[in-house]
């Protein structure tokens, strides 16, 4: 094996990776924030609605979950503008896709979470005279969040990894940065030797931090 490791070219371009990591994290944060709104909203709608509406929610969930993210990314970026008069850049388009994608997974998580709140707890809220809205905000929602926090953390880390797909739209996130350095310097092993730990440390670091947070909430 006559391959000599040379990290010099990687360090020279490390900014591409640093900014890439930051953008990956930003994309994941925005996607989960929008995803939570979609997921919680649809979970509540599902719970309150008649069968046709439920079927629509299920259709959205099942469609997104059973189609590759890459295809959804292409469909939104290249497909939609050909049928609707709309223009957006890669970042916006990818964010829209990833949020819809996150939403579909989060609907299921929220539905399970809402179902896990014991009936007696909401009754207890009613018994002390809370209005339905107050009961929802002060009893059901906090209880549910405590139940689903671990799933929420896992979803966030998995969205963070999914941001790598944005590289196909030339969104300069971490994987795009790696590919750029790869094609411009051909230091393949070195670039992945740097990028892999970046994903691992960021991913497991965030997961560890979120687990600590979960424990705090679990105690209180």
């Amino acid at each position, binding site marked *: 094996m006559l391959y000599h490791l040379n990290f010099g070219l990687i360090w020279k371009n490390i900014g591409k990776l640093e900014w890439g990591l930051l953008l990956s994290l930003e994309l994941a944060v925005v996607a989960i924030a929008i995803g939570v709104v979609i997921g919680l909203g649809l979970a509540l709608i599902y719970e309150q609605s008649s069968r046709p509406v439920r079927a629509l929610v299920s259709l959205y969930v099942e469609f997104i979950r059973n*189609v590759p993210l890459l*295809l959804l990314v292409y*469909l939104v970026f290249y497909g939609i503008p050909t049928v609707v008069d709309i223009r957006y850049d890669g970042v916006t388009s990818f964010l829209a896709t990833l949020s819809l994608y996150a939403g579909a997974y989060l609907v299921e998580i929220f539905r399970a979470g809402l179902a896990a709140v014991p009936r007696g707890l909401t009754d207890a809220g009613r018994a002390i005279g809370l209005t339905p809205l107050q009961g929802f905000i002060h009893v059901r929602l906090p209880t549910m969040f405590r139940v689903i926090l671990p799933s929420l953390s896992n979803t966030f880390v998995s969205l963070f990894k999914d941001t790598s797909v944005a590289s196909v739209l030339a969104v300069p996130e971490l994987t795009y940065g*790696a590919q750029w350095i790869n094609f411009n310097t051909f230091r393949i092993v070195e670039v*992945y030797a740097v990028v*892999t730990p970046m*994903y691992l440390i960021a991913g497991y670091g965030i997961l560890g931090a979120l687990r600590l947070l979960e424990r705090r909430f679990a105690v209180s």
Partner: protein
Amino acid sequence: MFWSVIESLPFVWRGLLVTLGAAALTVSMSLVAGLLLGTIVTYAPWPARIPVRLFSDLIRGIPILVLIFFVYYGLPVTGLNLNNFAAGVLAITLFSTAQVVEITRGSLQSLHHGQMEAAKAIGLNFPQRLTYVIFPQAVRRFLPPWINSVTDAVKGTALLSLVGIVDLMLAIQQVIGRTYAPMPLYVLGALIYFVINYSLSSLSRRLEARYAYIKE
């Protein structure tokens, strides 16, 4: 435009076959490797467990796309020349294996330790305990998440298009390049993936019902 889409169908069909082939290879290899490593990580002494644990956490910690690029661009540097199909399938198999390891561990650990003891007490040796007592019970917990991982593998194969394998995804991209009809073709592609994966998840629900007779 309509006709050009119809004309492209045989090409899309060939892409679909590539997708299914890649998925079948990935799923079968990762099933064997994952069951083996998952059993090791559950029952073996710690010196054998640690490398498997590291493998699984490492693979699950990086994006599958990065794994594909790394194997595809990185392996030639080590002197190992795989064509893009082999490299891509290898990468997704590694990813899928790590998932099967965790599913196997989870379903084995969900069994009460008394089952292992009762099997020991009548004198069964370790392979017999696994074959006749542990695996038949674990299969019920194993199947639903495993079928989920199969749909992940099928979806994962779409990323093979990025290393130039003409699978369903790339076939659709190429047809779009010729016909300039992105929307119908993306929708067609999405429907095909949907049908495959949705059938798999329905199968999972039916299998779950079939094993419901095992109550602890």
